[in-house]
C-alpha cells in the first residue's frame, strides 16, 4: 500500500483546499495517473483530474507531485521512492476542482504571441525549402506539449500576472527562429515590454519543471538578444 495525500477543492462547496489521504494498492509499475484512477474507481468517485494520452504527449495531466511539477502519467511510483506521495494541482493557476486548474490564462498568453507561422510571400506549389540545419534550430521547441508545468513553476509568472511566461515565449522563439517565417522584428515586438521576454530572471525553474526536457530559458535568452540587437539597430527616439 502507498499512501496518497491528495489536495481536494470544490469551489462550489469548500471554503479552502484541504488534503485527503487514500491508501492505494500499488502495482510495481504503477504511475501516479493510474493511482488516481484507482482512487476514483475504488475509494472516492468524486476526485477530479484531467487525462488523455497517458503517454506524455498530450499535456493534460501536469500536476504537482511530491513538490515538483510533473506529468502524472509519466511519473512512476517507484521512481518517487517515497512511502507517502503528495499530489496537488499546478500552483499559481486557479483551481477548477481538485487537481484540475483553469488554463485560460495560460492559453491567452499563448495567443498573444501570434502562435502560427506567418509568411506573406505567396506559397510555392510545393514545400518551402528548409535546410536540415535551419530545421534543427527549432527541434527542441517543437516538442512542447503545452502542459503548463513551466508556467506554473515560474516565479516571475506567479508574481507578475501579465508575464507572457516560458511556454508562450518558447513558442514565440520557435516561430521567430523558423527560416520559413518572415514576421521578423514584429515577432520580437510581441514579446517586448516589461511583461515580455526581458522580464525573465533566468532562474531556470521552467527548465527544471519541463517533462519534455525543453529549456525555455534558452529560447527566452535568444529573444532577449534579438530585442537588444533591435534596439541598437533602431535607436529609440
Amino acid at each position: 500500500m502507498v499512501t496518497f495525500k491528495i489536495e481536494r477543492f470544490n469551489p462550489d462547496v469548500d471554503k479552502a483546499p484541504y488534503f485527503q489521504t487514500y491508501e492505494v494498492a500499488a502495482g510495481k509499475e504503477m504511475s501516479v495517473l493510474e493511482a488516481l484512477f484507482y482512487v476514483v474507481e475504488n475509494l472516492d468517485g468524486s476526485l477530479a483530474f484531467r487525462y488523455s494520452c497517458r503517454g506524455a504527449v498530450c499535456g493534460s495531466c501536469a500536476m504537482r507531485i511530491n513538490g515538483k511539477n510533473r506529468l502524472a502519467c509519466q511519473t512512476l511510483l517507484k521512481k518517487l521512492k517515497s512511502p507517502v506521495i503528495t499530489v496537488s494541482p499546478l500552483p499559481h493557476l486557479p483551481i477548477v476542482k481538485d487537481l484540475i486548474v483553469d488554463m485560460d490564462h495560460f492559453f491567452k498568453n499563448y495567443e498573444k504571441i501570434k502562435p502560427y507561422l506567418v509568411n506573406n510571400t505567396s506559397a510555392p506549389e510545393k514545400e518551402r525549402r528548409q535546410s536540415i540545419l535551419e530545421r534543427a534550430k527549432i527541434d527542441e521547441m517543437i516538442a512542447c506539449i503545452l502542459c503548463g508545468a513551466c508556467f506554473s513553476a515560474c516565479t516571475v509568472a506567479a508574481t507578475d500576472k501579465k508575464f507572457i511566461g516560458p511556454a508562450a515565449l518558447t513558442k514565440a522563439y520557435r516561430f521567430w527562429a523558423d527560416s520559413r517565417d518572415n514576421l521578423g522584428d514584429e515577432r520580437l515586438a510581441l514579446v517586448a515590454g516589461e511583461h515580455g521576454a526581458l522580464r525573465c530572471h533566468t532562474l531556470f525553474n521552467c527548465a527544471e519543471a519541463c517533462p519534455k526536457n525543453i529549456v525555455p530559458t534558452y529560447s527566452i535568452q535568444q529573444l532577449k538578444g534579438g530585442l537588444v540587437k533591435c534596439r541598437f539597430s533602431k535607436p529609440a527616439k
Partner: protein
Amino acid sequence: MGLHHQVIVVGAGLSGLRAALAAQQDGLDVAILSRVHPVRSHSIAAQGGINASLANAEGGRDDNWEKHAFDTIKGSDYLADQDAVEIMTKEAPGIVYEMEHWGTPFSRTIDGRIAQRPFGGAAFPRTCYAADITGHALLHTMYEKSVKEEIKVYEEYLLLSIVKHDNACVGIVALNINNGEIIAMSADAVIIASGGYGRIYGNSTNALINTGSGMAAAYLSAGVPLKDLEFVQFHPTSLYGTNILITEGARGEGGYLFNNRHERFMKNYAAKAMELAPRDIVARSIQTEINEGRCYNNAYVLLDLRHLGRKKIMERLPGIRDICLHFAGLDPINKPIPIQPGQHYSMGGIDTNANGETSLAGLFAAGEAACVSVHGGNRLGGNSLLDTIVFGKLSGHFASGYVKAKKKNAADQALQAELAKVKAKVSRLENSAGKENPAKVRSELKTTMMEEAGVFRTKAKLEAGLAKIKELKERYKQIHLLSKIKKYNLDLVRNLELEGKLALAEVIVLGALKREESRGSHFRTDYPTRNDEHWLKHTLAHHTESGPRLDYKAVTITRFRPQARTY
C-alpha cells in the same frame, strides 16, 4: 432557443479542426465541441508520419498517386472502396504541402525538401515525417491555424445524443463536464470527428479518451449504420506493460524483430518485406511467436534498434527513446525494446461516402470515427493522418454546401424532447441503487474483447464474446455511481461512455462472427483464407432494440482487381 451554430463539429483532433476550418472558410458559423482541449486529442499521439507521393526520397523518385493507391488497396485486402482511395491519394501531396505552408516542422532531406521514410506495405519511402512526433507536429499546426482563424471551441463537453427531425440531423445533446449541465445545441449540420473506440480493448495504444462516443451516438441515437466494425487494427509494436505505441517508423528506419531464439522471425512470414510487411501480417506473426512460446514472459518479443546507432536514434526516433526511458526504464540505444501487439485503430466506423455524408441528411463524419472506406480490412501506417485531414476538409466543405442549400427546419421541439429524454436517462444512472460495480463491467469488457475478438478469432471465441457482452449490457443496467457530484464527475462521464462502448463491442463481435473468412486484420483460424466470392462486401450494422441488425453492401472496385496478397 438556446445555442445554435450552422455547423457543429464534434471532436477537435486533426479531422475535426480541419472540418471546422473548411466550413468556416466557406463563410459559415462553426463551433467545435470537444471532450478535451484540442491539443489533448489523440491525433497528438501519431508518431511515424503521413503518406503522400511527393517522390522526395532517394529510391522513391518514381512514386505517384496510383502507386500509393495500389499499395493502400492491396494493404486493405481489397475491401477499400477504390474511388475513395483515389480521392485520398490524389489529395495527399496537396494536403501535406498545405500543412507545410501552415507551419508543420517536417524533417528535411539534404536538399531541404520534406523527408520521407519507408513504412509497412509501401513500395517506396512515402511517409513524410517530423522525427517521430508527426501527429504532434501536425496537430499543433492545425490548432495554431484554428487559433489564427478564431475557431470557436466548446471544451470539455461529452456528446450524448444526435437529434433528428424530419429525417435530418438538427443538433446534439451534450454534457458540459465542467458543471454537469446537460444542454441541447441546434445545428444545420453536425460533423462527427471524435475518433476511435480503442479503450474497449484491454491492450490498446489509444488515449484513455478514445471511447467511441461519437460512433456510438451516431449508431444509437441517429440510427445511422456502422460499417466494417469487425476490422480492428492491432499495431505490431506496442510497449509491453503500458501498450504505448512504438512507431512503425522504428522498423522503417531499420529496426529488427527478434524472438527468444534471436531469430528475425519475419523471414518465416513475409520473406521479402520482412519487418515492413503491413500491420495485420506483422501483428499476426508476433502473436504466433508469442502463442507458440518463442517469446519472453509468455507475452512479448523484442524490437531491436541498437544497430541503428545513437545518432540515428536521437535524430529520427527521439520520442521513442523518451517513451522507453520513462515507461520501461531502458534505453533503446543499448537495449532492445519489449513489444507486443496492441489494439490501435478502427478501420470501421460510421458509414460515410467520400463527401463525409452519412445516411442521415445533415450528419457527416470524418477521420477514425468514419468509415469511407479507404482502409478496408487493414490500414497502412501513415494513411490515418492523411485520412483525417483529407476527409476532414472534404466533409467540412460538403457540410457547408448542404447547409447553404437547405431549407430552415424548425427543430426546437425535437431538441427539447431529446434533451428531456437524455436528462431522464442520466438522472436514472445517477440515482441507480444497483449492486453492480461499473469498474468491473468496464474491465471485463476489455478482457473479453482481447481474448475473444483479438488478433486470432474463432466461431467459439466470438460466440462466447457475444454472450459475455450481452451479459455485461444487462449488468450495466444495474450499475451504481460512486459520486453524484455535478462538477467534473469523472465517474459519470466514464459510465456514460461505457454504454456506448458496450454497444460498439457488440457490433464488432457480431460482425466478426458472421464474417466467415479471413481478410486484413480480421483473421478467423476456422476460415483462414479470403473468400471474395461471398465476402468481398462491407458489413453494415443497424441499431435495433434487440441488438445489431447486419446487412451488406458492395465494394467499389475501379482499376485494381483483387489478387492474392503476398509480401
